[in-house]
């Protein structure tokens, strides 16, 4: 132990992780609570869940990485204005469990607003856990600066046993790029709905890698579901998997892919057509695969073009519980969910109800 500490000290002094970007293979997630909690609701036979990639409260500002604009940083008033609209949508859905991706808790681009705490304080959700997927004291590129952004699970019910499980890093980057790049994770936590324990597994898979990293991320997500499912737990997986369901008609050449920089192009999913087959075969999804295959467009959940409309499905729920028939919904617009969600983020939220009894 003393030798390990000495080595850690030497490593720190030598500046091996000078900008504090690293993570352990498995480490505890960060716990949150709402500033003013209400009493824990009584257990319900049906759990309503919501999944939302909130784009760090960026709304539809045209950021540089989408290649529609040149913005890098937001003001605090912009961030809070966007969060207010996200919170309004979340309150409208009124989920028992909310899984979020791209939530910033301490980033220069989001004016250092702790969005986990903010959402807990402005919704009916009182408990939260967070796992960073991009953390650096300073990203010396494009003026990004300090960043701490990741995945979160928010709940009306108490959360225990939350872990951040590190996913594989990309191998198609230089050492310097990889040092400052996203380090994705699976966030696993147990939501205690009375006596029923629901193991929630959340992730945001790699988007741009060309080296198979995304596939390994999806496989690791599925393995985590399998592990807790086979142990007899109710499991609920959710996330932005950055790939399309099997049987999707349009798989490449999307009209909103305007980047010419290959680093930010995610426009061809043809080689990924089977990557979700196993998940669909072994778990229930919020939208049954046959329903999706019969009508792709009604379940699209992503576009980078604020002037366009959702043109691909990247976001999912998978569970070993029974999905309440017809409860799955992609909140695309007023007709599908009650609110125009295009202005809120570059992803549409999903919701589903699962039976716990």
């Amino acid at each position, binding site marked *: 132990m003393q030798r390990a500490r000495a080595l850690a000290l030497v490593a*720190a*002094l*030598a*500046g091996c992780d*000078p*900008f*504090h970007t690293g993570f352990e293979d498995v480490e505890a997630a960060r716990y949150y609570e709402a500033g003013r909690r209400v009493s824990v609701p009584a257990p319900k036979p049906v759990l309503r869940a919501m999944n939302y990639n909130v784009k760090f409260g960026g709304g539809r500002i045209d950021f*540089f990485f989408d290649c529609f604009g*040149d*913005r*890098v*940083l937001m*003001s605090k008033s912009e961030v809070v204005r966007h969060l207010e609209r996200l919170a309004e949508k979340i309150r409208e859905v009124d989920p028992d469990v909310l899984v979020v991706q791209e939530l910033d808790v*301490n*980033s*220069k681009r989001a*004016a*250092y607003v702790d969005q986990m705490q903010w959402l807990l304080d402005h919704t009916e959700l009182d408990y939260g856990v967070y796992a960073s997927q991009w953390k650096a*004291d*300073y990203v*010396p*590129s*494009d*003026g*990004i*600066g*300090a960043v*701490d952004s990741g995945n979160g699970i928010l709940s009306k019910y108490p959360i225990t046993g939350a872990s951040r499980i590190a996913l594989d890093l990309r191998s198609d980057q230089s050492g*310097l790029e990889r040092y400052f790049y996203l380090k994705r994770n699976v966030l696993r936590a147990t939501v205690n709905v009375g006596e029923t324990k629901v193991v929630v597994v959340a992730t945001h898979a790699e988007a741009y890698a060309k080296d198979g990293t995304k596939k390994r991320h999806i496989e690791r997500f599925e393995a985590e579901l399998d592990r807790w499912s086979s142990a007899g737990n109710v499991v609920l997986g959710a996330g932005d998997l950055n790939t399309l369901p099997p049987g999707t008609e349009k798989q490449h050449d999307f009209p909103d892919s305007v980047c010419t920089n290959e680093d930010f192009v995610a426009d061809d999913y043809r080689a990924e057509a089977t990557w979700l087959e196993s998940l669909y075969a072994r778990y229930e999804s919020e939208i049954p695969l046959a329903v999706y295959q019969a009508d792709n467009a009604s379940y699209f959940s992503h576009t980078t073009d604020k002037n366009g409309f959702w043109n691909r499905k990247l976001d999912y729920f998978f569970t070993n519980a029974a999905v309440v028939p017809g409860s799955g919904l992609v909140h695309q617009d007023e007709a599908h969910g009650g609110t125009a969600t295009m202005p809120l983020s570059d992803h549409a939220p999903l919701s589903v109800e699962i039976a716990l009894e």
Partner: protein
Amino acid sequence: MRLSFLLVVTTAAALFAAPARGDVSSVSPPDRRWSGSNALTLPRGRSELGLLGGARYGLTDSLELAVNPLVAVVVPHLEAKLMVARELGLFALRGRASYPTTFLELVSKEGEFGLLPATSKPPIAVQLEADIVATAAWFERQLVSVWFGFALAVHPPFTPEELPLLDFPFLYPRFAPLYGPGVPRLGFSFEGGVVGGLHYTAELVAFVMPGLPDVGDASAIEPNLALEYRFGARFAVSGGVRTSHAEYAYGRRTHFLPYLDVRAGF
């Protein structure tokens, strides 16, 4: 904070106006051949060129000029140190003027080394810095120094959107004067010989950075530990670790900067 700057200037004026005890050489420690974080200047005609430390020249026996050619390409600057011996001991007034705009424009870019967004519009700015340094020889070949200074920047007003805070470690306190009313600083150092040509420097500088965007009032402390081997009066190699404990908008963080340097004297 402008009062602090005035305090530095008036104290300096009082010290330098006070009656001299004698010539500088009568109170100089034994080795003035190499520059340091003290009130001593290089002797008249002596030059020094360091990779990181830059170029220094003893214009007179009590006035040293300095510029770092590598840094000057991106931050044009000039430093001067005026030394004087007075009844109270050995003092110096250290001043620096720089033009940070060029550097800010260079790092406002897309891609790698873009420390600021490409859309930033740095203002034309001149940064002025001054320190009063007091030094005493507390033992043979051992110097202790303390200094107090102030840095301010003169520039037209700008918004946080036009120039976001440059809070890259180590650059942070040095560019902080641009964003607030000014940066007072306090430092002390111990320098001296260990054995033979081996010398050490132990230094600590504290910065107070009021009124920064995103952060409010912040501070930074920078310890520096270095060892140097001097091959007579002509050549020296050194290595050390500079550390920064600073308060950022995202919390207090510590960063290390190991370094190696060489310098030659003529």
